[in-house]
């Protein structure tokens, strides 16, 4: 009964129909990115001088990194809140986070007008420390590195398993060394997102007259941080449920229900703080009864998150189906919040319009498709997912003893 948590590649064919669909959208998206670099941003996007940030920054960077906060959310739960039974979700979450952040970085470079000057970000003599964007850029880049290091054990395990002579031997010797220092990186992997997720909110502190009063507040950094947390938990539920469904594995409902509690509580705290903030600034009426599209957008955001949190609190609704729905509600509501700050509520006095252009939208779709494509390919090759338990075979171990064994095996601290 004292089994180590086993991770192994999913195996199976890589070239499925789903893969080709994802590949199709990826190719379209990346071809359009080539057009963007050849002809300029204006040729593919509807961004204007009044809406200088469009969906690339709003979705790919601001919302995308929040969606990639699964790793962060799980790490907090496991290491800070002692939730070791969630540990089996970590590898998958780290991988998704890694792709989410790398592709967010890639989206930034696509969006940067003078991308060839990006080396200036690395020159301390040029740093302007009042800039929230500087913090976001440096922090995200460091975090990508940290995520990679956190994922290194998976790669090393794979290499060791391959039996590639000297390379595998090197991996054999390197892996334990990595284990010893890994905890420092894991903690860094919890510190950095705290910083840059709140900084994503700080970016708009300075737009005092330009972001609609329903959303502009001095507490933007705090709200963005909490938002990324409950969004992160929502993403973990989504990811886990999808994986289980697609690869015909057991739904980790108990695990997820526990997670859900955390997400729900954070969402509730967030909602309460938002109302308090609105009341303190005298904007409750504007938010709830404004009667215009800003009030409407706020209400949708509020109700989605509220509904998600409510469902998560009800034990009756802790089925795979309802956990999934609740997770999605948190994600869409949380994402809508970010869209409201960055786009919908931006430059609201001007009655100017922005809607993404078709190439702009397809580039975002392409990048998202690529993220899923890479994830699905890698989980089939690398030992990312916990080894499959056979849910329908007789005599399989029951859940509680399974949990116990997982906890015990974690004491042999090889692979976080």
């Amino acid at each position, binding site marked *: 009964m004292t089994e180590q948590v086993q991770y192994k590649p999913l195996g199976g064919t890589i070239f499925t129909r789903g893969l080709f669909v994802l590949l199709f959208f990826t190719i379209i998206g990346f071809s359009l990115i080539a057009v963007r670099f050849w002809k300029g941003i204006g040729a593919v996007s509807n961004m204007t001088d009044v809406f200088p940030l469009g969906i690339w920054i709003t979705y790919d960077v601001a919302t995308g990194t929040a969606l990639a906060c699964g790793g962060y959310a799980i790490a907090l739960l496991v290491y800070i809140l002692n939730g070791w039974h969630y540990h089996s979700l970590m590898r998958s979450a780290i991988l998704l986070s890694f792709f989410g952040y790398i592709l967010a970085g890639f989206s930034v470079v696509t969006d940067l007008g003078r991308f060839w000057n990006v080396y200036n970000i690395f020159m301390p003599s040029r*740093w302007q420390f009042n800039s929230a964007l500087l913090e976001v850029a440096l922090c995200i880049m460091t975090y990508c590195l940290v995520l990679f290091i956190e994922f290194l054990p998976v790669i090393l395990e794979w290499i060791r398993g391959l039996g590639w002579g000297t390379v595998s031997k090197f991996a054999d010797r390197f892996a334990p060394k990595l284990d010893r220092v890994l905890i420092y990186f894991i903690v860094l992997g919890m510190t950095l997102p705290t910083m840059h997720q709140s900084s994503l909110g700080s970016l708009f502190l300075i737009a005092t007259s330009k972001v609609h009063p329903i959303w502009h507040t001095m507490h933007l950094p705090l709200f963005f941080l909490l938002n990324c947390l409950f969004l992160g938990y929502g993403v973990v539920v989504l990811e886990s449920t999808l994986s289980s469904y697609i690869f015909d594995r057991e739904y980790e409902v108990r695990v997820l229900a526990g997670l859900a509690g955390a997400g729900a509580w954070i969402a509730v705290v967030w909602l309460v703080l938002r109302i308090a903030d609105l009341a303190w600034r005298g904007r409750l009426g504007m938010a709830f009864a404004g009667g215009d599209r800003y009030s409407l957008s706020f209400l949708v955001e509020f109700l989605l998150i509220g509904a998600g949190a409510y469902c998560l609190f009800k034990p009756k609704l802790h089925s795979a189906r309802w956990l999934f729905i609740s997770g999605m509600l948190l994600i869409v509501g949380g994402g809508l919040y970010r869209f409201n700050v960055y786009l919908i509520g931006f430059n609201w006095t001007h009655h100017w319009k922005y809607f993404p252009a078709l190439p702009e939208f397809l580039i975002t779709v392409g990048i998202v498709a690529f993220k899923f494509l890479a994830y699905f390919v890698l989980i089939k090759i690398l030992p990312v997912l916990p080894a499959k338990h056979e849910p329908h075979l007789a005599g399989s171990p029951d859940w509680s003893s399974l949990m116990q064994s997982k906890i015990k095996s974690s004491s042999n601290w090889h692979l976080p």
Partner: protein
Amino acid sequence: MKSQTRRGFLKCFGLAGTVLAVGRAGFASEGAINDNGVGLLYDATRCVGCKACVAACKRANDLPPEKGSFDPEGIWDAPADLDGKTRNIVKLYRESESVWSYVKVQCMHCMKPSCVSVCPVSAMQQDADGRVFYDKTRCIGCRMCMVACPFIVPRFQWEKPLPQIVKCDLCKFSEVPRKGKPACAGVCPTEAVQYGRRRQLLAEAKRRTETNPGRYRSYVYGEHEVGGTNVLYLASAAVPFDKLGLPNLPNEAPAAFSEKIQHRIYKGFMAPLALYATLFFVATLNRKKLSKGGEKEEER
């Protein structure tokens, strides 16, 4: 095992001290705000809409003409607004035959500029005379300056594969070295736009509103808005400033507001380090608890 926790904990605080020293570097626009920089005084009641300033600005700064939407053959330079080819423009507000005013639009050269505060690579800078200027060799095109500017002044060259931000810099590198004053002020036939030190321009503006109350709105726009701007506006008594496109803005500089909050969080990098240390402490504690719990289980 306890020592390991303590060791790790102390390591973190050791780092803290080193970084504290670094933390003092590179904060743009720290220190007292210069209220006597160079600027412009634009008197809308004197402006006759000749647009000599528009043509002069284009000439002095080598800016290409902009084709108007009504001009398919492109025989005029007819921008509809500031844009990637236009740093300065004259617009018209017309309410009726008798109530109208021209308005010259360009960078306001805020005393505490938002664009300078948000630029990650110091491409937007403010010199000792208060001029806010742009260095395209550093600019990465992130467009945060466009997000931050309360007046929506910096413009981007969307149609170019190698774009840059375009904004008035009071002819710092073009006409001022040649003729000592910006092109617009140098060419204005009615002295509607004048160049000088802010204190003198402000005093002159106030003098005009006081000695001629029937003609002027008794308010100098830019005196206090967003912490004060180096470009000041006088309008006719019949025309409110917001009709001229000069928005109603609070007196607190947005940059001051956001920097205050950011400094509170990041001063000396203490908070992030403290966070790291705390997280490390808790995580290590939990791991010890876990291994202890596991051993107990085995013993059982």
